[in-house]
C-alpha cells in the first residue's frame, strides 16, 4: 500500500510539475516574444533591418 501511495504521490507531483512547467513555459514564451519584439525594434532602430 505504501508503495502504491508513494507512486500516486510521485505521479501527481510529476503531473503538477508538468502542468506548472507548461504554464510557466507559456508565460515565458509570451514574455520572450514580447521581449524579442522590443529588442528587435531596438536593434532595428539602431542597426537597421536584418540583412543577409
Amino acid at each position, binding site marked *: *500500500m505504501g*508503495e*502504491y501511495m*508513494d*507512486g*500516486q*504521490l*510521485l*505521479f*501527481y*507531483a*510529476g*503531473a*503538477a*510539475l*508538468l*502542468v*506548472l*512547467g*507548461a504554464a*510557466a*513555459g507559456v508565460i*515565458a514564451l509570451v514574455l*520572450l516574444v514580447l*521581449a*524579442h519584439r522590443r*529588442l528587435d525594434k*531596438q*536593434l*532595428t*532602430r*539602431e*542597426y*537597421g*533591418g*536584418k*540583412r*543577409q
Partner: protein
Amino acid sequence: MGTIIAGTYEIERQIGAGGGGTVYLGKHLRLGKQVVLKADKRTLNAKPEVLRREVDALKNLSHTYIPQVYDFVAENETVYTVMDYIQGESLDKPLSRGEHFEQAQVIKWACQLLEALQYLHSRPPHGILHGDLKPANVMLTPQGDIRLIDFNIALALGEEGAVQVGFSRGYASPEHYGIDYRTPAQPTAESAETQVDDVAQTVLTGESAQNTGGSRVRLDVRSDIYSLGATLYHLLSGVKPAQDARDIVELDRSQASQAVAEVIRKAMSPNPDLRYQTAEEMLDAFLHLRENDPRTRRFKRARNLAAATLSAVCLAGAGMSFLGLQQMERAQAAAAQEARQGQEAERVSKQALAAIREAENAYQEGATLRAIELSLQAMEDPGPYGVQAQKSLTDALGVYELSDRFRPSQYIELPGQPLKVALSPQGGKAAALVDGQVQVFDVVSGEQIADLPAEVSALSDVLFLDEETLLYAGLGGLRAYDLTHGRELWRAQTATAIALSADRSTVAAVYKNESEALIYDAATGVLSKIISFHGRCQPVPSNDRFADPEDSLFALSGDGGWLAVSFEGGGLRLIPARGNGEEVEHYESSPFTHFEGGFFGHYFAFSAAGTDNSVFAVIDLNTMEQTGGFQDRTPFHVQVDETGIYLSSNNLLVGLDPVSGEQKEVAYTGADISAFQVDGPLAIAATNDGGLAFFDQARPLAGQTEGGPWEFLGLSNGVAVAADRDRQRLRLFTLETHPESQIAVYDPSFDHDEARLSPDGKSVLLFRYDAFQVQSVQGELIAQVTLSEPEQVYDQQYVREDGKGYLDVTYYDGRVSRYDAATGELVGQEQLPPPDKGLEEEFLTDRYKVVSPLHGAPIAYTLEENKAVADLTAEGYLTYVTQVGDYLITEYITADGERYGLLRNDAWAVLARLPQLCDILEDGTLVFDDGQGILRQSRIYSAQELIALGNSKLQGGKK
C-alpha cells in the same frame, strides 16, 4: 549644343571638379542616355597599353553599388571616362550642411560600401583598390542607397600592394602617409615613435612620403578599410576624424552604439594588422551586429535558460509521473501477486489440511498406504500445517510403533456387502463374494485382480485352491479360475457350498438344499463321485440371501477321504468321499441348529449349538469313537484343519490336543470371542464388543482395533482379513515386526513400572515402587532388590553418571539410597533435606521451564521472560521432559499404567506419538518397552527421512 566628345557624347554641363579632374554631365547622342564624363588630363601621358589595361579593368566592373564605366575617350589631350550618371548627391554635401544620419542608415551604407569594396578587392588578378574612399566619393541616390565613385584605376593592386597616388586627409590611412604602425623587426619604443612622428609631421605639412626620404608603405585593402571606417566615423559623428590615426576620439554612445563604435574603431586601427583584414570581414561584423549585440546575447541566454529550465521542469514532471505510474503499477501488480499468492497459499493450505484430514481418516480406517500417500501429498506444500502433515505421515508410517503388531494395511471398498471372504494360502490375495460377484484383490496394493460372476446366494462359497487358483461357486457352475493368467481352468455343475481337502486334491460341492454332494478332482474338475444324502439336505431358508452359511457344516478330511455334512433337523453325518465305505451318522437329528467343525488328521472335531446349549466333540475316525468333548450354555467356535483343533468359549481360545486333551491357550480376550482364525503361532480373534485382537503364541500383539463386529476373518502367512455383512469393506492387516530394533530381552514375569538399559548396554533395570530387578540383556536375572519402607518412597530416578547407571531412591524424610543399576548393590546413602512435598514438578531445557502440578495442566514457560508458551496437557500424567537436539519429548503415564511419549518441535507442537517409550539415552536414542520382555530402540526421524520412507513404502505397495 554642348561639346561633342568622340562624336558620341555631348557634354551638357559641369557637375563637379577636383584633384582628379572635372566631371561633366553628358548624354549619349544615339542612346539619349545620360552619362557622366570625367575628364582627367593626367592620364593622357600614360602608356597606351597601360591605359588600355586600366580601361578594360574598369569597363568589366559590374556591381550594384559601383557605377558602370562604359567607355574611355581621348580628345583634346583629355581622357574622358564615360560612366553611369548617378542621380543624387555625394555624402559630403549633407555633411557640410550639418545633417545628421541615423546609425541604421549609416550601417546600411556601410554594408553597401563593403560589398562594393569586397567586389573591387576581389577583381583579378590582384584586386582593385579604391584608394580614396571618403564621403565625397560616396553618392547617395534618391532611393537612399549609395554608389561608390571616383576610384582611381591606377590603384589596381600589384602583387605587393599599390603605391598611393593621392589621398584625402582625415580619411586616408597612415599608409597613405607612408606611416607603418606595424610592429617593427627590432624597434625601440622611442625610435619607432620618433620615426612615426617624423613621418606624420612630414605628412601633416603636406609633403608626401616620397618627399620624406623614408621607406615606402604600400597600400592594400586594409587602407580602404581604414578609409571606410573614417567615412563612417564622419557620418556618425558629423566630425571628420583626426588625420593622425592615433588621435582618433572614439565615438560615444550618443553618436553610435558600442558595437558600431567598436567596428569603426577596429577599422581605423593605426596598425593595419589590427584592422579587419578584408572587406568581407568588416561586412560580416556589420551583418552580425544584431547577433553579437550584448542585448541579443542576453536575450538568447535568457531564452535558452528559460527553455532549458522549463524543459527540465517538464521533463522532471514527466519523469516523475512516469515513475509514479510505474510504481503504482508495480505496487498494484505486487498487491495482485500477493493476493494471488495469498489465495494460492490459502488454497494450498486448504488442500494440505484436507489431505491431512483425509489421511487421518484413512489411517483410522486402516488404509495405511492411502494414509501415507495423502500425508506425502500434504508434506509437499503444507503451508502452515507442516507439523500436522508430519504427524500424519509419522502415524501412517508407524516408525515409532516397534512392537510386533498386525498393522492395518489396506481398506478396500466393496461394491456391496460381503457374503464370504477368503485369504489365499500365502496371504497375497483376498477374495470377497459380493452381490453375485467374486472380487479378488491384491493384498499389498489393494488393486482388484478379478471380478467373476458368482451364484447369487449367501450360501455361495469361495476359497483358494492355491495361491493362484480360485475355487468358487460361479454363476452356472462350480469353477476353478487361474488368477495369474485370468482364465477358467475347469467348470463343474452348479454349487453353493464347497469343501476342499487339506491336501488340495479333492473338492466337494453341494448346491443349496440338494440332497447330494458331488466330489471332484481338484486339479481337473472331473467328477469322481456323487454322494447321496438320501433325501436329507442342508438347511436353506426360502430367501437364502439371509442364510448364514456358517450354520451348516460341510467339510472334507485332509486326504479327501471323508465328507462331514450337517443337515436340516440337526443331523450330522460322516460320509466316505472315496470308495464305498459306510457312512457314520453322528446325529440323526438334534436340537442343534449351528454346526462348525473339520478334520485334523484322523480326527473329526465339531461344535454344535442350539438355543439352550452347545457341545464340542472330537471323534477318532479310526475308531469312530468320541475321544473328548465339552458342553456349555455358550456356543463354542471351532477351527479344525490340518494345523490343529482350536476352539473358543467365552473369551478364551485354546488349542486342543485330541490325544491328551491338553488345552493350550492361544488367546485371551477382554470380551467374548465371536470369531477367530489361527495360523500357526498367530491368531486373530473378533469379540462381541466389535474388537479385533491379534496374538502371537498367546501373547497379545499391539494393533488391537475396533470397528466391528467382524464376522469374516482370514489369517495366512502374517496377513489378516476382516469383514462383516453390514459394511461394504474389507480390512486387511499385515504383521509387522522390527527385530532389528531389539536391544534387549527380559523376563516379563517381574512386574515393573519402568525399564532402563544400562549405559554399557549389557543389563536392564526393571523397577517399580517397592522393588527392582537387574537382568542381562538376554533376560537372565542378575539381582533383585526389595526396597525397605516402600510406602515412604517419594521418588525413584535412574541416573547415568560417568558411564554407569544408578537408581536413586528418595524417601520422604530426605534419605537417598543409591543402587548400582548393573549389580543391584547399594552403593551410597545420604541424607538430604526432605523433598518439597509441593505437588509440583519442574523440568528444565535450554530455553524452557516446564512446571507440572499434580493436579493441573503442565505449562511450559520461557526461561528468559518466564512467559507461558504451551500447555502440555495430554492423556495421563507428565513424568519427564527431555530435550534432544532441536526436539522436546514429554513423557506421560496413563491411569492404566501405559507409558508413552510425545515428540515435539521447539514450539511444543506435537510431531509424533511414541508409544511405550521408556527411556531416552544420552545420544538421543529412544528406548521402547513393550512390557512383554523386549526393549527396542529407535532414533528420531527428520521430516525428510519420513518423506523418503513414505515414498519407499508407496513404491513397495505399487509393486
